[in-house]
């Protein structure tokens, strides 16, 4: 077996350079047919999310209907990629979504802080998978990472990956707590070598969440991993992307960093709750030529 790299020697990242690259990518002008196609693609990449203490089965069922019927008055809309819920609602969501093709993702491993024992995290994961979760969104132990205990973080991810069985594993780095892009890069490398199917920026509970420099840094880490191993890893920015424009800017980043193969919801997701409605407003505007009141679109 090929040995893992020394994670203390992950490539360095120049923050100023990353910000400049993002600024340049943001000058891409997305108009007309490519705007409509991009917006539909982005809709299809959304993990429609509710992760609140006050969630109920009723709320989850409503969100699942929305996931399958984004705006039935507008023809040719895709569904979202998945719904993302706590493990206790996986069974409800699974039943509500039926055979629509919309996946069920569940957060696990003592989400969002991850402050628990490995044993609890494994059981949390297994419970979600047993309830029918197609995807598991785990959190890394940021405290251990920040004190340099990279092998702890690595082993924990590897153990959760094993517990996932057939479910795909998204590893949340919680970049808002990692502080530097060097750390974002290192955590990305650890997650991918430990078996992540996706790397994900944030829980949505910590600010800043998915900033463009963080997303670009992670996309570049995915590219390096692909160069090195030939294995594709997915990317999920989550939290903070609420406008159609920001979604298109993310697609531009993916297109120019990883290319066409990643422009698919098998490899790229948006973790978001309000993004879908803003995209729908833009699509309605493209279809009718006018902006509509937000009350023409359902809020679930």
């Amino acid at each position, binding site marked *: 077996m090929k040995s893992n790299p020394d994670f203390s020697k992950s490539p*360095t990242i120049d923050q100023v350079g990353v910000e400049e690259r993002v600024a340049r990518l943001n000058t891409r*002008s997305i108009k007309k047919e490519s*705007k409509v196609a991009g917006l539909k693609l982005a809709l299809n990449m959304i993990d429609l999310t509710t992760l609140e203490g006050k969630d109920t089965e009723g709320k989850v069922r409503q969100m699942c209907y929305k996931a399958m019927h984004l705006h039935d008055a507008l023809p040719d809309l895709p569904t979202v990629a998945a719904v993302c819920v706590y493990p206790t609602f996986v069974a409800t969501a699974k039943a509500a979504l039926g055979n629509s093709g919309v996946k069920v993702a569940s957060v696990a491993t003592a989400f969002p802080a991850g402050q628990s024992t490995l044993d609890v995290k494994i059981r949390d994961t297994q419970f979600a998978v047993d309830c029918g979760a197609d995807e598991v969104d785990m959190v890394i132990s940021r405290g251990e990472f920040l004190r340099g205990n990279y092998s702890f973080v690595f082993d924990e991810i590897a153990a959760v990956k094993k517990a996932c069985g057939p479910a795909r594993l998204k590893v949340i780095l919680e970049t808002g707590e990692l502080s530097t892009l060097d750390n974002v890069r290192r955590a990305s490398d650890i997650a991918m070598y430990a078996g992540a199917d996706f790397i994900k920026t944030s829980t949505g509970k910590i600010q800043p969440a998915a900033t463009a420099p963080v997303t670009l840094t992670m996309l570049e880490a995915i590219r390096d991993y692909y*160069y090195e191993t030939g294995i594709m890893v997915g990317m999920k920015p989550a939290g903070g992307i609420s406008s159609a424009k920001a979604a298109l800017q993310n697609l531009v980043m993916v297109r120019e960093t*990883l290319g066409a193969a990643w422009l698919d919801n098998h490899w790229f997701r948006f973790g978001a709750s309000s993004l879908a409605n803003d995209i729908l407003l833009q699509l309605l505007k493209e279809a009718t030529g006018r902006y509509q009141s937000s009350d023409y679109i359902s809020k679930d």
Partner: protein
Amino acid sequence: MPIKPKATKSVAKQTAKKTITKKATLDFVGGWSYAPSPESKDHIRLEKKYGHFINGEFVKPSAGKYMATHSPSTEEHLADVALGDAADVDKAVKAARKAYDTVWSKMPASERGKYLYRIARMIQERARELSVIESMDGGKSIRESRDIDIPIAAAHFFYYAGWADKLEYAFPNRTVTSVGVAGQIIPWNFPLLMAAWKIAPALACGNTVVLKPAETTPLTALKLAEIIRDCGLPPGVVNIVTGDGRAGAALVSHPDIDKIAFTGSTDVGKIIQKAIAGTNKKITLELGGKAANIIFEDAPIDQAVEGIINGIFFNQGHVCCAGSRLFVQEGIADKVIRKLKDRMETLVVGDPLDKNTDIGAINSREQLDKINHYLKLGVKEGAEMWQSSCAVPRKGNFCRPTIFLHASQSHRIVQEEIFGPVLAIQTFRTVEEVLEKANNTPYGLSAGVWTDKGSKIFNMTSRLRAGVVWANTYNKFDPTSPFGGYKESGFGREGGLHGLLPYVNLK
């Protein structure tokens, strides 16, 4: 030796095909892409014919001759501009002398500053128009003319406007006087920006000017003439004579010029220096370059790759300080080159007015021929040519972004300035080796260093013989920062406090 462009193209294509294949596993061609997003040119108003701008008004050329200016991307005829001769130059110099003697040198410095502020503001107000014209006439992408050329041109006027009444603080304990009439000759790569670099400090220090824009890109200078007229600058303070090298030669040899400022090729720079030998004229020359862009093993690699792209493909490579010689430390060479190739696949080459275009048109057929000549030469010399497979328009002057792998220090493509989107790549092993190679050039305008280690940056920057050294960035311009060369890249500095010096006499 002139080489037909057709023959060169076919060589380029074959070589591209041969080397592109195996590693290009990321797909930057298929899937979701960008629809054309052209910047509108409906609002652009160009005269059919432009005269010289002398003594505050547009006047017909004395010999009645005009030359055409074309769009290098569409080959469309844009306007006719006056073809200046010695008589026109003489008229302009006389107007400048009169304005200097009677008005400008006597005006309170704070008043001079106000005019410069006004010009700066009017450039900002007409920024959209100026950037579209710059892209139409010169071929550069609208992204660059909109985000770089025009804003920095305005910034130069703002910056030097501030110095106008503070020259005694720029040169403490000295008596500062103006020089007189400046003759300024500018190149075609940054037409309006170079005009701003030249005019702003000259005026701030109390001089008057006669400016000759480049033959292929006169339009934004003539639009600047409109701004100068409309802002009420006293007649004769700025005069603009269009034309070819003959007008430039007449300007250089005119006996009533006190200072020459030239930006352009080293060959012409040498001619100018010979021409003014034995005269009392002050001179600054900003000439060619063949800059080393040096990537160390510990560099932030993805950002360094972006720096390579900015270094050589900015403005189609028509940049005197372009990072045209890449030195990569051997341990990371394969990785850097693979990333560089993938990044080059994402470059958009085409219509300069499309907001998504990264690389516009080569400025002239003549320049394209020169670049193609070097492409052929590089292959003949044994370097391995690789070109981006990006789509290139059939019509107009376009060149694929090109790199040469396995280039040698003895190759002419490494030694000579190509002034196009062509990068020669070498590897190195030690600091001493790369310093020797980087400095082993007749030029010395700029250089770039990429490393995560601060001490390495200081070691390199103090030992590289180049006027500007960028660390972990490339092609950054700011009016507060001096710019200029060592050796055959010229002398004198433009920009910043240092940029005032050529336009003052100190006692």
